[in-house]
C-alpha cells in the first residue's frame, strides 16, 4: 500500500511500485483531469506538481513520489499562482479542445511560482514541453503575461453581453 498526498488529501493506493503516477491518478484515484497524450514525456499533457515543481506523470513511477505533495489540475486553483493562471486563461479564452490545457496550466503555474514576472524567453523555456495541437500558444503566452502582471494582454472576452 502506498500513501500519496494528492491535493492536500491522503490517498491509499494498492498498486505496483513501478506504475506511473499518471495512471494511478486517472485509473485508481479517479482524478481524470490529468491527461494521457503520448506516454513518452513528449507532450506534457500529464504534467502535475510534486512539491510545486512540474513533472511528467506518465514517466514517473508512483514509488518515486515519496512524501512529496502531489498537486493536479483539480487542486491547482487552491494556490495563488494557479488561481491567477486560471483567471487569465478564462479572460483570454485560451482553451480550444482543452485536452492539453491541464498540462499547460500546471506548467504555467509552476513557472509563475519560480519566476513571478517571466520574459518571453522564460515562457518559451518553461512551456516548450507542452504540445497543443489546436495551436493555442499565442493566447497561452498572452495569458501568462496577464497572470503575472494583472494587465490585460490580449482580446478580453466578456461573460455575458446582454444589457443589464
Amino acid at each position, binding site marked *: 500500500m502506498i500513501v500519496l498526498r494528492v491535493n492536500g488529501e491522503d490517498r491509499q493506493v494498492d498498486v505496483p511500485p513501478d506504475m506511473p503516477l499518471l495512471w494511478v491518478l486517472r485509473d485508481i484515484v479517479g482524478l481524470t483531469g490529468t491527461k494521457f497524450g503520448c506516454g513518452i514525456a513528449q507532450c506534457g499533457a500529464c504534467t502535475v506538481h510534486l512539491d510545486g515543481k512540474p513533472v511528467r506523470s506518465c514517466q514517473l513511477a508512483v514509488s518515486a513520489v515519496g512524501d512529496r505533495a502531489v498537486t493536479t489540475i483539480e487542486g491547482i486553483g487552491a494556490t495563488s499562482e494557479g488561481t491567477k493562471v486560471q483567471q487569465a486563461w478564462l479572460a483570454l479564452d485560451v482553451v480550444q479542445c482543452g485536452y492539453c490545457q491541464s498540462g499547460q496550466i500546471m506548467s504555467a503555474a509552476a513557472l509563475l511560482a519560480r519566476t513571478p514576472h517571466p520574459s518571453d524567453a522564460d515562457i518559451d523555456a518553461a512551456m516548450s514541453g507542452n504540445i*497543443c495541437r*489546436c495551436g493555442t500558444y499565442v493566447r497561452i503566452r498572452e495569458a501568462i503575461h496577464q497572470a503575472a502582471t494583472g494587465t490585460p494582454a490580449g482580446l478580453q472576452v466578456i461573460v455575458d453581453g446582454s444589457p443589464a
Partner: protein
Amino acid sequence: MSARCDHDGMDPGRRAVLKGAGMGLAVAFLWTAGMGPAVAGMSARRQDADSAAAAADGNPPFVPNAFIRVDADGKVRLVMPTVEMGQAIYTGIAMMLAEELGVGLDQVTIEHSPPNDALYGQALLGGGQITGGSTSTRGQWQVLREAGAVAREMLIAAAAAQWHVEAAACSVARGVITHAPSGRTLGFGAVANAAGKLPQPAGVKLKERKDFTLIGKPLRRVDSPDKVNGATLFGIDVNVPGMKFAAVRTSPELAGTLGAVDETAARAIPGVLDIIKLDNAVAVVGNNYWIASRGLEALQITWKPGVNANLDTQGLIDALKRSSQDGPALVGRKPKGDAPAGGKRVEAEFITPMLAHAPMEPLNATVHVTPGKCEVWTGTQVPTRVVAEAARLCGIPAEAVTLHNHFLGGGFGRRLETDQVEQAVAFAKQVAYPLKVIWSREEDIRHDRVRPLYFDRISATLGDDGKPVGWHHRITSGTVLGRWLPGGMGKDGMDSDAIESAADLPYVMDNVLVEWVRHDMPPGLVVGWWRGVGPTHNLWVVESFIDELAHAAGKDPVAYRRAIMAPGSRPLGVLDLVASKIGWGSALPARCGRGIAVGSPFGSHVCLAVEVEVTPQGIVKLRRAVAAIDNGITINPSSVKAQIEGGVLFGLSAALYSGITLEHGAIQQSNFHDYRNLRINETPLVEVHQVQSDEAPGGIGEVGTAITAPALANAIFAATGIRLHQMPVAHTSLAQPDALKQVADTGNRGEGVA
C-alpha cells in the same frame, strides 16, 4: 450510415458553381445541390422525434424544439446539434439560440445532443448528424435563431395570456418577460408550463443585426470554466462501474493480419485479465490501462503479411505519377475558348504528403455489450454513424444502441471516422464487462486514416504582360468522398473535394482547365478528412504556383495577384489588408523573406502572410504571421480569431515537419518525437485582422490551416531562392552549402558541437 443525397444530385451544383468561378465553392455547398425533400435537417419547429427526445431529457415543461428546454425552475438548457472539439461551436450555437430566446450565456447550461439525424442532421452534409466541413455555423445560422425566436414568442404568448395584455407590448431580456406599460415581469420558469401547451407561432421575426446583444461580441466560451480546472469529461475520462481497460495492437502492416500470439508472459502479470483477438488485432485487458499496456508489451506476436508487404511511399508516389500521365482525367473546370499560341510557359510538379491527425486525446471508446444491447461512450463527430456501426456489429437494431457522446480532445477530421469505435465494439462483444479501449499514441498514428497523398502537375502560359492566359492543373489522388459519402460523388465520378479551391480560383482567367485523376489507394491504406480537406492541398499548389508565375513574370507577388483579381472582390480585400498590415515590400535582413497566399475556402475569404528567417544551416525560424479573414457576419470575434490563430499554427506544424511515410506497408511514424508538432518556442507572432461584413457567415474552423503552407513556402523562397515543390519543408535542404561544411569542419575539430 447511408448517404442521403441523390446520386445524381451533385453535378448541377458543381457545374453551376464552376460557372461562377471565384464565388467561394465549398464541399458543403456542393453537397446540398440537388437534394430532395427526403433530406433530414434541423428544424426550428417541433418534429416527430421531439417528444421522445424530450422524454429522455427529463420531460421539461417547455420544449419548443430539439434545441431548447426550459425547466419549471426557469433553468434554460440548450442542446447542441453539433459537437465541440475546440472550434467553439458550442459557444456559437448557444449565442445564436440565446440571442433570439432572450437569455444571457451565463444563464444557460449546455447539453450534448443524442444521436438523431432527424433532429440534428446537417442539411449541408447530406442530412447526417455530422460536425465537419466547417459547416456548423453556415448550416445552422438561420434555423437556430429561428428556434430561439419560436421559443421566445411562445413564452411571451403565455405571459401575455396570464396578464391579459397584448403580446406585442411584452419584451424579453435575460430570461425575464416584461410588460413595460404595467411594469409586470415573469421569469421563464413561471410560464414554462403554459408555454408548453401553446401552439407554435406561424411566423417569427428575427432580430436585425443592429439589435443583436450577443452576436458579434467576444463572449467567453461556454466550455472554458470546466476546461481550466480539469472537470471537462472527454471520452477517455469515462468511468463506468465495473469497467476494465484494454490496450490494443493492430497489424503494423496496413492490411496485415494476426498470426500466432504467445500469451505466456502477459498472463503472468498480476492484473492482466483477458487477451482477446480480432482478425488483425489483439488486445490485453487489465485492471487499469497501465497493466493492460504492460501485458500488451509482453505478448509475442507474429503478424501475417498482407497485400501491402512491399508498399512504400516512393512506390505510391511513382504510381500516382503514372496515373497522372495515363489518366483517365475527369474535367472539373473547362476552359473558355482555345489556349492562345505562344507565350512563356511555366510548369511544375507538386507532391503533397499523407498526414496524421494526432488529436491530443488519443482515440478511445468504452463499450458495454449485453444481450440485445450495446452502450458506447466516446467522443465522435458522427454520432449516428457510431450507432449504426455498433448496431451492425452486434446484430441489433439501432434503437438498442445507446451512445453517450462527449467533448472531443481534438478532431481535425479523425473523429469523422468510426474505425476505432468499431474495433472497440468487436473486442467488447467478447467480454461481459464494460471495456475501455484506448489506443496508445503509437497506435493512433500508425493506424490513422491519413490525409491523402497528392501528385499535381500544373502549368501556365503567360501573355506579354506576364499575366496567365492559359492554366492547366491536373490533380491525382485517392478519394475520401468516394468512400465516406459515395452519394456525394458527381455522376461522372468527380470528387468535388479533390478540386475544391483549384477549380474556383480568386483570379480572373478564362482559359482554365482543372482535372482530377482518381488513383485508389491499396487496401488498408484508408484516406480520410484532414483539417482543411481539399483546399489545404489545392491552395498550397495553386498559391505556390501563382507565386512562381509572379517571379517568372518579374513581378511582385502581391502586385501580380492584385492585377489578376476582380476589383472590389472579397479576396482582394483581404489581400490588400494583409499586405498593408505586414508592411509588404519593406526591407528585411538577409535570409529573411515574406510570403503571401490568398484563397476563398469554406465560404470565407482569407489571406496570410508569413515572415521567416532561414539560417545558413537551413533552419526555418518563424518571425511573424499576419492573417486577414472575411467570414461574413461574425458570431463571436474571439472564436474566429482563435480559429485562425490555431488553424495557422496547425498548418505550420504540418508544413514544417509532418509527413506520414510507409515502409513494408506500415506507417513509419509513431509519436510526437517523429511526428513533430510546433512548440511555443517555435511559434511566430500571430496577428489576425477581421473584416466587418454583412454577408452570410462563412466557415472558419479549417480556413487558417488551408492557407498556411503556400504562405510559408513562398516566404522560404523569398528568403532563400529555393522553391519548394514537396511538403513538408523538412524534406528539403535549405542550408547554404558552405554553412553545412563549416559545421562539419567544426565537428571534426572536436569542439563539442552537438
